């Protein structure tokens, strides 16, 4: 496993010139026969922004990326790069760097030849293209490995070559299609940091596709959650995580406690709800409209309390405690609901509740989110 750190960029993008790399999708729709893969999608990526399309398989996220890259033709709507419609441009004229799921390196070419490929296609003189390829390989921490064939490189190294290859021709933006799917967990986390660092230093826009919510949380400026060809929610990672608009988003982005709720009053920011069996309480509200509502409280936001003080909580019984190493997962039955409470192992000593004992739990009003129950 390689653990080198990305070298500082040797060619900083000029900050005086207008930054490029804005991608706009307007009412983009893709159908395969009767099947709607992507439905009336509107999405704007600002120059330098790292946007992640997050969703399960079949949500249309990869199709969306392939339409931006030009490999899939959209049925209707328009794709624009830096304000120019590219709907009729073939992939090779869109000037986008694409990193594919299994890297798709040319197996018979060395790492350097792979990186040089785009420059060769652009008829860059040999000496210059070689220098630029070596620069790009340096930047991803592969100095000296340019002569190796892809099969002589580890998975992480292959991915670096794929990155260097996608960046060497100064593309308008970078498209990453689940680039970490083939790596093991530790290397994946390492590459997430490297890619993020590289993206920041280059100031390049990135459209990233993944089904891994941790990856999306770790890397994105903005997460676009997709389901069934539509955008369900879009926003900064913390916002999407802490303030999901539906129970589906809440569950897709990690564990959560969902308590069925009846809305008593709401003003768009805050709502007063009746939580069956847990009394009434104030929760955050984003104004999502639906037929049935619930309140989502992340397990780490549920806390043990010393006594029955304050609103937003109740008394119950600790039914189980599971030590997960860094954290401990408790299950507590409160007012007929089985809630999950997660605390750091290092904090557990202070509370020290025994399984079967009576406990008080509660949450801060701004950590509880009113959301729509789907389906």
């Amino acid at each position, binding site marked *: 496993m390689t653990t080198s750190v990305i070298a500082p960029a040797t060619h900083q993008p000029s900050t005086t010139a207008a930054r490029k790399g804005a991608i706009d999708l307007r009412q983009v729709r893709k159908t395969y026969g009767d099947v709607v893969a992507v439905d009336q999608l509107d999405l704007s990526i600002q120059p330098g922004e790292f946007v992640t399309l997050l969703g399960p398989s079949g949500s249309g996220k990869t199709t969306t990326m392939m339409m931006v*890259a*030009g*490999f899939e033709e959209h049925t209707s709507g328009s794709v624009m790069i830096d304000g120019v419609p590219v709907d009729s441009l*073939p*992939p*090779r*004229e*869109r000037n*986008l*760097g*694409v990193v*594919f*799921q*299994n890297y*798709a*390196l*040319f*197996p*018979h*070419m060395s790492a350097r030849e792979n990186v040089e*490929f*785009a420059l060769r*296609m*652009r008829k860059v003189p040999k000496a210059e293209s070689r220098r630029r390829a070596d620069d790009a390989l340096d930047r991803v921490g592969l100095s000296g490995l340019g002569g190796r*064939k892809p*099969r*002589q*490189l*580890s*998975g992480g*190294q292959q991915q670096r070559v794929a990155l260097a*290859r*996608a960046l060497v*021709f100064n593309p308008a933006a970078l498209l990453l299609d689940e680039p970490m799917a083939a790596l093991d967990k530790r290397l994946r986390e390492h590459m997430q940091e490297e890619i993020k660092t590289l993206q920041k230093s280059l100031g390049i826009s990135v459209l990233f596709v993944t089904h891994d919510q941790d990856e999306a949380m770790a890397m994105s400026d903005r997460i676009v959650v997709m389901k069934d060809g539509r955008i369900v929610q879009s926003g900064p990672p913390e916002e999407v995580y802490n303030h999901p608009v539906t129970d589906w988003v809440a569950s897709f982005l990690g564990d959560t406690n969902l308590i069925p709720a009846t809305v008593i009053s709401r003003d768009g920011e805050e709502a007063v709800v009746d939580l069956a069996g847990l009394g009434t309480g104030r929760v955050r509200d984003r104004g999502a409209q639906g037929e049935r509502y619930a309140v989502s409280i992340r397990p780490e936001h549920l806390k043990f309390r010393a006594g029955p003080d304050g609103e937003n909580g109740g008394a119950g019984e600790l039914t189980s405690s599971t030590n997960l190493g860094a954290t401990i997962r408790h299950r507590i039955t409160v007012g007929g609901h089985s809630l999950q409470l997660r605390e750091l192992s290092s904090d557990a000593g202070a509370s020290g509740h025994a399984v079967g004992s009576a406990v008080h739990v509660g949450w801060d009003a701004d950590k509880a989110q009113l959301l729509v129950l789907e389906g």
Partner: protein
Amino acid sequence: MKRSRKTLQPGRQRKLLSLLSLPVFAFLVVPTLIVVPVALNNSRYITFPPGGVSLAAVQGFFADQAWTSALSASMQAAGIAVVLGTVFGASAALGLHGRKFPGQQAVVGLVLAPMIVPTVVLALAFYQFFISVGLVGSIIPIGLAHAVIATPYVYLTTRASLAGLNPALVRSAQSLGAGMLSVFRHVHLPVILPGLISGALFAFSVSIDETVMALFMQSPGATTLPVKMFTDIQFNLTPKIAVSSALLVTVATIGLLIQVVYVLKRRSTARMMPLAV
């Protein structure tokens, strides 16, 4: 589970297999190789077993203009068959790869048809066709007919090598700015090259060996080696026939060796590269 008592250990199984294979192998190869000692016989007729060793028949073969022109006719026909058959077969394989359209199976069947239709039927059809278009009296119609029967071989070997093509490579080349020709040269060609080479060798041996069509379309100056052998063997039983047979066997063996060496070389380079994960 009942264990068969007849189960042998792997080592003994292998020995038994080679013991059984040997006579089969000999049955297949020895009759072919008999032509070599006959060709090197010192008799003026075809005799077996040979009386003594001599290169007289070989020299006689190359001194006889009728035989050398037959050899040259065969080579010309094979040249046309290899070039056109490879282009047709490879184009068909590339064009049909990764596509789905109505009637695709019919197109595949059409490409493979020359392999299935009896040669004598094809020969008659080509004969009539080339007469009707006035293309007779040269090696060209024979070469064209051979190209048609060589095409399915190239198609099959190319299609087999295309199965190993990662479709993402085409997309990645396109995203990097490659046009259609560059994609073919840098993505398809390296993958299909082994298939092309073995297809071309197949095309060569199919053409060199083909007798029926060449017999139908023969003309003075367009008599291929097998046709010359076939006509001579009825009237003129000289060791030159054995020499030309030995020549064909040699050519076929060289073709086979090229393939073997190529395959071994690829395997050893693949083994030399440690598979890093």
